[in-house]
């Protein structure tokens, strides 16, 4: 084995090592790019939903009509009105968002909840959000420390308005239009 061959091997291996590192970095970039495509996808879906809402509202004059006509007083409305999301506005996971469909959302400490909050102030099954005839309704599931809507403890299922603060333990949520 001549010195020259070994020198070529040495340089070749270093190049191969770095090529591998760049392969991995390229894969991560593709991964990030892939996620961005998914986001564009949901944006397009949202746009499609908005158009669909206009169609539905125009043709059927349905009860779950889109909100723009009376935004001040309308309760948070459903999937065909506007795409809504549940946002954590304060607490340890501030900024987390959850897209709302018509599926009920449960909040609590147990891991079968849709939104899992683990602290000393949240009960294992604390509260539930349900979509009922055009609006989102929050009900307390017998929690120890209570569920607060705009600072007032709720005692019965209550309709939740857009951007109204919903406090559970040390976390505050709000429903927002996307």
């Amino acid at each position, binding site marked *: *084995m001549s010195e020259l*061959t*070994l*020198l070529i*091997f*040495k*340089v*070749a*291996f*270093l190049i*191969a*090592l*770095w*090529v*591998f*590192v760049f*392969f*991995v*970095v390229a*894969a*991560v970039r*593709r*991964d990030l790019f*892939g996620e961005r495509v*998914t*986001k564009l*996808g*949901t944006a*397009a*879906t949202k746009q*499609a939903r908005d*158009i*669909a809402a206009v*169609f539905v509202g125009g*043709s059927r004059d349905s009860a779950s009509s889109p909100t723009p006509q009376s935004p001040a007083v309308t309760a948070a409305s459903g999937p065909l009105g506007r795409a809504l*999301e549940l946002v954590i506005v304060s607490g*340890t*996971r501030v*900024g*987390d*968002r*959850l*897209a709302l469909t018509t599926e009920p959302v449960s909040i609590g*400490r147990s*891991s079968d909840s*849709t939104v*899992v909050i*683990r*602290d*000393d*102030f949240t009960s294992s099954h604390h509260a539930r959000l349900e979509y009922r005839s055009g609006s989102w309704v929050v009900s307390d599931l017998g929690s120890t420390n209570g569920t607060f809507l705009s600072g007032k403890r709720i005692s019965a299922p209550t309709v939740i308005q857009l951007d109204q603060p919903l406090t559970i*333990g*040390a976390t505050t949520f709000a429903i927002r239009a996307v």
Partner: protein
Amino acid sequence: MAELSLAQAELHTGEIPKLRAPRTSQRLRNIELGLLCSAFTLTTLAIMFVQFGVVGRVDIHPLGLWTLVFGLTLVVHVILRMVAPQADPLFIPLAFTLNGLGIAEIYRIDLYAQSLGWDALATKQLAWTALALGCVAAVLLIVRDHRALQRYTYTFGLVAVVLLLLPAVPLIGQEISGARVWIHLGPLSFQPGEIAKIALAVFFAGYLVSHRESLSVVGRKFLGIRMPRGRDLGPIIAVWILSMLVIVIQKDLGTGLLFFGLFLVMLYVATARVSWVVLGVSLILLGGALANQFLGYVHDRFANWYDAFNPAIYNAEGGSYQVVQGIFGLAHGGLLGTGLGRGMPYITPVSQSDYIISSLGEELGLAGIFAILCIYVLFIARGLRIGFSGHDDFGGLLAVGLSFVVALQCFIVIGGITRLLPLTGLTTPFLAAGGSSLVANWIIVALLLRISDANRRGSGRVIAQ
């Protein structure tokens, strides 16, 4: 009306987010397969170049064994396709590459020492890799939801303590080069502390997630720092003191530093309080100063570090010979290294385990070491990212803890070899010869894969951070 319904039908077909999910998972696994194949090519090249460099011809035997290990990795890959299709695609190829580079370098030193067959450390390392991959498969198949681990928070705490105490048990415990951290079972020797670090990470994550509100909000202010209530801090301090005691008794400084760093970072991530870090770092400095004063072996380590090139210390029994030889090795390597199989890494004591980084640095040079560090950085960055992107706090905290353990271990070992820190006896993750470390780090890979899969599966519900 007909036009209208047509338009609606079109809009309906336009909504395809549900169809995207399986394609994404396939895509992630395909990336993994591609990277795994290039990793196999790279590591096979490394083993071949070692053979060219030392004996000048190719020996098919070790290559065959390495191909067998690659086959096992492919089995794990197929298991991932079935039970965790959305798992992050980088972990397995990165860990596999480090593992393979480690085996190539261990094999290189075996070739010099003429140890072959089952006496060779490289063969043992290959067997341990196979066992570790079996553990990965088992963890992936048994732990279907990492949140189930939270139910056993205190069990994991207990397991960690028991594992740390095991080497002190007279019959199975064993003392090697001054540290009593080994247990001996038949032909196998094992460092239970390596597994204990995973159990401790699970315990800290489970405990901190449910108590961090109380830890960060409740309590009295003392010297401008909010001190938590005793009953909130009690169990965690108890486990910590216990592990520290075990370490003082077992004379293993590196593991002590590792556990304390893990504890500190997880506490900081859970409570977001800088005061914890300030308190913790001052405790480390205080502890270091006290240990330097009162513990003989710690004092020696400090002397070997700050006065390494003093001939008296260099020539002393247990002196700085090893540290200095490691640095000479790195210097001999220079920018591009001597080439695989062409250096003299065997001069440094334990060049296959604790000093594998200086062996690789000698033969691959600065360029090679930086590539290896890049691989570590990618691995750790992916782990931390999983911690941030999840929607369950237990998984997030666990992912941060596990990747931080790997990061801190790299820092302590490579810092020790390059004389940034006093030398402590820890293994370089995935590279160094040593079965327990290899198994533990591969289990960390399995847990990170499981958490990343759960995160991506949930991404249908949580849109963004």
